[in-house]
């Protein structure tokens, strides 16, 4: 179906719903690269005005990515819950924005709505929202998950301790784990991106993290961010896998370029659940996403990158993940050109994920070929803290020496707690105090050279 919107004497035509969605998207380099962005600032606003009048339920009858060609579309439409959708079924996209911002839309109402919303609806309304709208609504969404601690409670934010090392060296990884723990980080997960795809190396990293978690009785979980098929192979060999990781995207084709489909993800989910390693819950999956991955894989179907990103969250929520994060600035300037675009995308992704009921964290990050710097990351981090982000990354000095990009640091986590009064996952917060790392208010105590965690590193180095 084509759409037309008149502004004065000029009329703006849009070929179909996906064209309208793409042209209504705030400007970004990836949509320009795909050749689907609005050609002028006025066309961009005309598309937003036109989109505001489209009924929400249109998205249930008009698939942006064809149902027959794409299993993600089938997952979304076949899994749609009409009962949950009923309270908003008569609204247009514009009305839906007003509803989300209203006092009627309480945390309980929004949580009840999640299964009735499709990623396309959520992406559409985000295109009409300013940054403050994205923050305000996301803050009202509650998504709580559990494995060995409780992630996502109001007033908390968690941190993934990311102890990457360029050669997966045990002493190097242990030193960074120690650094992060003594800075009060690691409640979301201790999660390593391995430099090597080698199964024996990954097995060794899993055992190292399992050892530190068990010996010090840390209420947290570990993950090696390797391909789901590698995690399955390792679980079959008896490796201590807490969370099963996979990068995912919003189309079948993009997922195929990652070497996965929904069946493989289901296998990973079943295998992790069967191990039953959680203590307070069994949310055992960890997914990463990021705008632009579908275009990068040549599998975007002419749909804008932000909408496809929201579709990845529909894939994620099927498997009840503990954590999902958008690696927002990692992919490079061809998709998000500068600090402004990265900030906008981070807020959009967080909003869309939360509204869909996914525990969304954000890797607040950039690469050295993007027009961004640490000041932009400070801004996005602060905005996401205000929006109630589920978790952020903690990397020593914000410099990932294996993946070669800049993210947020252990210090940044202290900063956001200090400025916004955000607490850690309660079980982890209590552990830090028990271990003499923090005081009862959660602030770091002066560090001791005799802390038992230091002994662990000396053992690994010996």
């Amino acid at each position, binding site marked *: 179906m084509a759409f037309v919107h008149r502004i004065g004497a000029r009329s703006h035509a849009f070929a179909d719903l996906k064209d309208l969605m793409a042209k209504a998207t705030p400007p970004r380099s990836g949509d320009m690269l795909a050749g689907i962005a609005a050609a002028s600032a006025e066309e961009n606003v005309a598309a937003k005005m036109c989109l505001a009048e489209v009924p929400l339920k249109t998205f249930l009858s008009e698939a942006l990515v064809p149902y027959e060609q794409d299993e993600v579309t089938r997952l979304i439409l076949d899994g749609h819950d009409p009962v949950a959708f009923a309270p908003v079924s008569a609204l247009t996209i514009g009305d839906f924005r007003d509803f989300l911002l209203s006092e009627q839309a309480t945390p309980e109402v929004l949580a009840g709505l999640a299964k009735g919303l499709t990623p396309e609806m959520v992406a559409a309304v985000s295109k009409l929202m300013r940054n403050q709208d994205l923050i305000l609504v996301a803050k009202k969404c509650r998504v709580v998950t559990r494995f060995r601690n409780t992630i996502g409670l109001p007033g908390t934010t968690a941190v993934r301790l990311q102890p990457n090392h360029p050669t997966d060296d045990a002493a190097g990884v242990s030193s960074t784990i120690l650094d992060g723990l003594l800075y009060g980080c690691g409640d979301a997960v201790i999660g390593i991106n391995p*430099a090597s795809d080698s*199964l024996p190396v990954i097995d060794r990293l899993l055992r190292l993290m399992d050892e530190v978690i068990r010996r010090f009785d840390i209420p947290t979980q570990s993950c090696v961010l390797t391909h789901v098929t590698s995690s399955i192979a390792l679980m079959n060999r008896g490796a201590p896998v807490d969370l099963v990781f996979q990068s995912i995207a919003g189309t079948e084709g993009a997922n195929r370029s990652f070497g996965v489909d929904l069946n493989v993800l289901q296998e990973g989910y079943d295998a992790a659940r069967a191990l039953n390693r959680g203590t307070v819950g069994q949310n055992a999956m960890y997914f990463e996403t990021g705008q632009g991955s579908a275009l990068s894989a040549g599998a975007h179907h002419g749909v804008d990158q932000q909408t496809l990103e929201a579709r990845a969250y529909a894939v994620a929520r099927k498997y009840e993940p503990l954590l999902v994060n958008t690696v927002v600035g990692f992919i490079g300037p061809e998709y998000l050109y500068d600090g402004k675009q990265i900030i906008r995308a981070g807020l959009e992704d967080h909003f869309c994920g939360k509204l869909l009921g996914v525990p969304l964290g954000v890797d607040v990050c950039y690469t*050295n070929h993007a027009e961004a710097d640490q000041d932009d990351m400070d801004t996005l981090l602060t905005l996401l803290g205000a929006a109630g982000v589920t978790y952020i990354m903690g990397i020593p000095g914000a410099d990932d020496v294996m993946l070669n990009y800049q993210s947020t640091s252990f210090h940044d986590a202290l900063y956001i707690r200090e400025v916004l009064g955000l607490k850690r996952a309660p079980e982890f917060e209590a552990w830090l105090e028990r271990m003499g790392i923090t005081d009862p208010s959660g602030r770091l105590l002066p560090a001791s050279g005799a802390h038992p965690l230091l002994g662990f590193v000396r053992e690994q180095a010996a």
Partner: protein
Amino acid sequence: MIDRDPWQSFARYTPARIALGRTGASLPTAEVLRFSLAHAQARDAVHMPFDAATVEGEIRALGFDTLRVESAAPARDVYLRRPDLGRRLSDESRARLSARDAAPVDLALVVADGLSAAAIHAQTAPFLAALKPWIEKEGWSVAPVALAAQARVALGDEVGERLKARALVVLVGERPGLSSPDSLGLYLTLNPHVGRSDAERNCISNVRAEGLSHPLAAFKLAWHIREALRLGLTGVGLKDESDLLLIDGSPPAALPDLT
């Protein structure tokens, strides 16, 4: 004013920025400035031009033939915004490759500047010097090494296809990090042709003296090439088990006999 971390001695185990100390929740001034300098240097590395002539001389000195190609990206700023152009040959390069009457070979090697010409300048010759004995031991036939300017990994697919190679290795300058402006990545693709996806490749990353050493990287790559040729696949189906063959962390003298 500054709280120092009593585990500074552990900094020798990792290039990561650990034990930085703090003032309140924040980084000490010296660390903030040190970080800014590293970022400035990495930004400069992204924009450094590729000195193909010098690298070509070094490769020839090792006894490899060479040829030169360019991508369809005309300049660095366009290259950064338009990765699609960096994955395609220029018309002129394509015509030049098509004009060659090449016999099929086991291996094509493509040296692509990627996002760090500095990496190519520093790592190409020592890495190929370490790889050459493995090529000779295994008896693989090799096409002339292609030096590719303004080039991303997937550009190698077209080069490998036109050079009639069974397997393609792309040496690419990885995106510069703050601590590693000159890190090399290796991508192996069996039966290269235009349209191969990243799931069909194997990657060995962080090749540099301070990361994965040249001898280890060369051994790992040789192991992958032989497994790829034996199994008839690369990508997620080919799992790296090369570490099982290391002897005290060093490569063995040869790959095990196939039985």
